[in-house]
């Protein structure tokens, strides 16, 4: 294939996440071309929606994806359990897997922070919604000043938390706090998630608390945060600070410390999922972004070989 032709991609999973991602792929004219949406339920609404948009569909799940020889990149929007079965098959078939489930077969990625380092991987995992929202800002601080502790609190609308999130709430806490450390650059991370059942539903909101390890150059830190907000906004338009970052003196296990507090709101693009579900939008938007960067990388590689 020549450099410049679209990379054919497939979505595995015809639920809400798969559908939202499908609409993002249809809306944005990038380097990817959606060649197949595969589910496992012939009667599913998601497959019907895809057909009505003229997208080829199948209810043979992973088997249909493996048979689609020209598909180079696969978004897995099924479940953690299913992805652990899909991952080795996709690898054997030479297809790149972008995993939206909590399976964590491949390395965890947050596009503006560490995706560049993982473009040679055959499988990458999109860390939790809360991680996608908060890790970029912790990283934006840790690249300016060492961070001894970072804590994030995500509050999401009840209606945007599916059964997977609910039954695996501990994994969210665990995975996200590790991500604040390994990807965000904090020496220690902590994550809290809260469900809010208010009607009308609230937008996803996140609060980030950071304890810097050294004297703080506020301007340098806040500039770095502002640059990162702009970078995330490039693929999640509804990502915005509720106010400029503030600092506060707090009693901590390390004595009285200056704490940076960032209040963040994420409104969804409403491609398929409702706008309040910013927590789901940031996942599909990060998946789209990840797909685009992989597609560019794959074409540059083939282009260089040609």
């Amino acid at each position, binding site marked *: 294939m020549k450099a410049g032709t679209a990379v054919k991609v497939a979505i595995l999973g015809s639920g809400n996440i798969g559908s939202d991602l499908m609409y993002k792929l249809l809306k944005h004219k990038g380097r990817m071309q959606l060649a197949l949406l595969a589910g496992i339920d012939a009667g599913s609404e998601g497959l019907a929606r895809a057909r009505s948009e003229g997208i080829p569909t199948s209810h043979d799940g992973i088997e249909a994806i493996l048979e689609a020889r020209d598909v180079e990149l696969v978004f897995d929007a099924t479940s953690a359990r299913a992805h652990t079965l899909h991952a080795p098959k996709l690898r054997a078939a030479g297809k790149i897997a972008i995993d939206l489930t909590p399976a964590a077969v491949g390395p965890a990625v947050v596009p503006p922070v560490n995706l560049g380092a993982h473009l040679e991987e055959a499988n990458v995992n999109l860390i939790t919604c809360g991680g996608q929202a908060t890790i970029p800002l912790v990283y934006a601080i840790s690249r300016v000043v060492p961070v001894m502790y970072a804590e994030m609190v995500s509050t999401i609308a009840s209606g945007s938390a599916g059964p997977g999130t609910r039954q695996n709430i501990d994994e969210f806490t665990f995975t996200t706090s590790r991500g604040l450390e390994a990807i965000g650059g904090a020496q220690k991370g902590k994550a809290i998630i*809260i469900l*809010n059942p*208010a009607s009308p539903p609230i937008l996803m909101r996140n609060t980030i*608390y950071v304890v810097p390890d050294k004297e703080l150059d506020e301007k340098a830190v806040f500039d770095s945060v502002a640059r990162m907000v702009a970078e995330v906004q490039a693929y999640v338009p509804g990502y915005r600070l509720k106010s400029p970052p503030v600092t506060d003196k707090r009693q901590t296990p390390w004595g009285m410390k200056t704490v940076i507090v960032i209040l963040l709101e994420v409104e969804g693009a409403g491609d398929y999922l409702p706008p309040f579900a910013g927590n789901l939008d940031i996942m599909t938007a990060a998946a789209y972004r990840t797909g685009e960067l992989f597609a560019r990388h794959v074409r540059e590689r083939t282009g260089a070989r040609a």
Partner: protein
Amino acid sequence: MKAPRLVDTTLRDGSHALRHQFTRDQVRKIVTALDAAGVPVIEVSHGDGLSGSSLQYGFSGTPELDLIEEARGAARKAKIAALLLPGVGTRAELKEAVARGIQMVRVATQCTEADVSEQHFGMAKEMGLETAGFLMMAHMRPPEILAEQARLMESYGCDCVYVVDSAGAMLPADAAERVAALKKALSKAAVGFHAHNNLGLGVGNTLAALEAGADWVDGTLRGLGAGAGNAATELLAAVLDKLGINPGLDVFRLLDAAEFVLAPMMPFQPIPDRDAIAIGYAGVYSTFLLHAKRLGEKYGVDALDILVELGRRKTMAGQEDMILDVALDLSRKAGKQVQ
């Protein structure tokens, strides 16, 4: 009415009033006094449950697992319990708490989100713990919704589902109809009631809950707890005794425990004062009180206005970060008017 089981949570809900600074020495003294007075269950943990030590809620002065260990060592008959909020604490901390001595876990969810507790009840039962479930902010939903959520907790292995008036916003009839709905809906599990005294109804609502059939009730010495505090354990003991349903509590020993053991440790006596009444009136989470006072002072905003706005925004249990959000919004609004 029958004699209820009384759970004392001075060392958990009371932790909020001490900004989570209980020491090993204080825990030993309080547990010894409660145990000697016949209190059957004593809850010990960070105010926001296991792993609540954080910037969001305040860091613990002494690690809660050390406090749990101290409590277990001091208790001769009483069971030691801990609170766990899924989303804050996890099964990992539950395991550690069991290793350090808890015999009961109380798993707390928002009153509409019981299904996040399935794994925690499952593990607790596997580990042989007694279990209770907290439906927090229960004033926000009608009895039939709470009953559905209670049935979920029962199906996961919860031994007693609590109607939790986290905001101290209920009137006696609100407490009674919620407890009655749970009594009717549950086949095996008992029903509990946890009061806050923001509207001065801590003991009154507990009595209404008992009349409606509540099996377990919560108290704290001197009512020490979030907001205007809880139903006072020693007060409940005296009242239950006069009602002829004393579950085996030594009234005078509890009066002494409250007066001579706990009171000297208290930074202040929680009462339904201006801001605390506002919490009950606006229906917001009782633990917001001290955070709202502090941030109100920092940003030159009346804590009462912050609390009322938090109620208008329908904030739920654990959303302490919203207090800063509201304080900033109100101070910006005030700034604009000045210009």
